[in-house]
């Protein structure tokens, strides 16, 4: 109980710090913060399925794309007032992603492990191609979204708070989920799905529900991301690196932990955009070496290493 209170206080302090940050830093740092919050939000949304249920999707960018295109096409066809269009596009982006996930859930969730991962990768590639080649989606020419940012606020600050709200919301939802009946069921599925089913966990229902929730949250972020770009093509949103980064952030921070995806996103965004931002020729190489090194030295992620240290320290403390 004491640990739980401390964790809530720590999360609250971090949230408060992030909330006041734009007032004290340069616009560039706000944009880095925006990128961090986008990455953290995506990693947290992926982690609901990949971390809690153990179903690693290699194609979650499909839902980023669905969210973005839903918002873009809604604007093109309905021409709602900008802020209303933004709200409706964001909401609908999540809903359409959820609906799509519900449709494909039955066939893809019958697969496990690497087969599931590759199936989702295939789905994202197919959707990317469709959005590019079917005229109705306009993915080849690109979609323009209106400027929705009020005059009184800078665009980077506006979208910083949008992504902060999303990331914080998904974090809180993850925290609730982990301690819920569904969360315990997902943990059982992750550890041994057959045994979980045998013990009465409704595995199919839990998996579908989690898949749909994860897709809805990712799609919502995708819609906001589209508005933050202002103009996007299929290549801007159906990106394999989006899918891989979601996994990488969770992996670096610690799969199965609450804060792991957030810590992983913070670390990698800082390294790639701040530390290595100026190294024209070697930044990808250095990033690659760093990631491989971290995965080899700390396969359970940074929080995993921390947990091991604490356990060892406690053992040494005992008389």
């Amino acid at each position: 109980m004491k640990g739980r209170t401390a964790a809530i206080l720590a999360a609250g302090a971090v949230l408060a710090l992030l909330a006041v940050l734009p007032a004290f830093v340069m616009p560039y740092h706000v944009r880095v913060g925006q990128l961090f919050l986008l990455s953290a939000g995506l990693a947290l949304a992926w982690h609901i399925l990949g971390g809690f249920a153990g179903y690693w999707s290699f194609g979650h960018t499909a839902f980023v794309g669905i969210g973005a295109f839903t918002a873009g096409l809604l604007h093109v066809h309905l021409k709602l007032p900008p802020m209303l269009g933004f709200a409706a596009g964001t909401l609908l982006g999540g809903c359409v992603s959820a609906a799509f996930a519900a449709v494909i859930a039955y066939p893809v969730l019958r697969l496990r492990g690497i087969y599931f991962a590759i199936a989702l990768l295939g789905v994202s590639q197919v959707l990317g191609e469709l959005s590019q080649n079917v005229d109705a989606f306009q993915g080849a020419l690109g979609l323009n979204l209106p400027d929705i940012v009020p005059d009184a606020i800078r665009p980077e600050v506006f979208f910083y708070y949008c992504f902060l709200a999303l990331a914080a919301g998904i974090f809180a939802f993850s925290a609730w989920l982990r301690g819920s009946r569904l969360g315990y069921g997902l943990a059982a599925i992750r550890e041994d799905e057959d045994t979980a089913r045998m013990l009465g966990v409704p595995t199919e229902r839990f998996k579908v529900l989690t898949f749909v929730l994860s897709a809805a949250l990712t799609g919502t972020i995708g819609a906001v991301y589209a508005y933050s770009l202002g103009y996007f093509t299929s290549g801007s949103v159906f990106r394999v690196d989006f899918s891989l980064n979601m996994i990488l952030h969770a992996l670096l921070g610690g799969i199965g932990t609450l804060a792991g995806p957030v810590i992983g996103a913070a670390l990698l965004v800082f390294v790639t955009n701040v530390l290595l931002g100026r190294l024209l020729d070697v930044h990808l190489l250095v990033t690659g070496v760093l990631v491989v090194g971290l995965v080899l030295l700390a396969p359970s992620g940074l929080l995993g290493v921390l947990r091991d240290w604490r356990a060892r320290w406690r053992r040494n403390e005992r008389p």
Partner: protein
Amino acid sequence: MTAIAAAPAIIGTARAQARTITFGGSIPLSGRAAETGLNVHAGYLAAVKAVNDKGGIEVGGQKYMLDLKMFDDASDPTRATTLIQQQIDQGVDFFLGSFGSNIVLPTAAITERARKPMVQAGGGSDQIFTQGYRYVFGFFPRASQQFISSVEYFKTIEPRPRTFSVIFTNDAFSRTQADGAIKDMEAAGFQLMDRYQLPETITDVSSVLNSLRAKTPDMVICTTHDQNSLLISRQMAATDTHVKLLYQTLGPQLQSYREALGRFANSIMVQIYWDERANYKDAVFGSAKGFADTYRSINPRPLAYHTAAGAACIVVYLQAMQKARSVAPAAVREALATTDVETLYGRVKFTKDGDGDPILLGPRIGQVQKGAVEIVFPTEAASAKTVYPAPKWSERS
């Protein structure tokens, strides 16, 4: 904060009296657009080196050296916008462009809001020039207007072709240019027979060629990128799909394309955006040929028209600064808007929307003859006459 910083720390004691003009921006040096990004970047580097080697540039009685601070956006718009913002915060006043409209547009939104000029040679989509931006200038005419000079050329061919079909791929550049081509060609009285839409990267066009053999137009116009153009002409030659005129916007200008096709490349038409043999005078390099010679002496990377355009972006900037007698972004922007100068790339003038003048900066028309590209239009710049109708594939030598 201004981009002109006190110089000693940057350019050393020998140049203690000079200040520095910094050009910033992003460029894809990795990722899917890296190949062209590297070409554009090589042009920027060549221009900065040439100016600095000559002791810098004088603006309003003050000597300036140039500094280039580009970063790799990895073809990622999010990374590009983040790092462009960093440069704005650091006081960079003048920006060069990335490659690809999906990156140029989001970054241009930031520089526009900060009222810093951006001169770019990497984005030609119409969307860039229809946002009402005042500080963004592009070397290429917007995609929908890049076919104007080609239509003028087709009107001069004797006997005049009457029908045409268009092959294009599903990307912003190819599609927009195809739409513009069809509109302009029909307005000029040419009759459209078919339009073939293909995926962004194509691997086989045999079904299109079957259709072309069944319903053969006088001209086939491909608004395709280099590799796609090569695939189309290879399969046309292999299947003996003959048309009187095969026109490809990109592809035949590359030596690698012509070497791959061999004698079959002869008679194929192509858009030429830049030719080092053109008689252009340039304030920094002396001429187009002077640029080509300088470039080859410092960079082993093959010279491409994007490289020349990249170098010309900086030349145009410098001339605008000298015209404005100032390095204040707003004054330079005003000078850029009224720019009308001859550079290594040709005569540069922007439309009121910021894209390149479609006549002055639009493409010339070339034709592959005996393995080399000869300019056939406009007539005053022509180095050879058009071979029309093209010989059948088996008769090409």
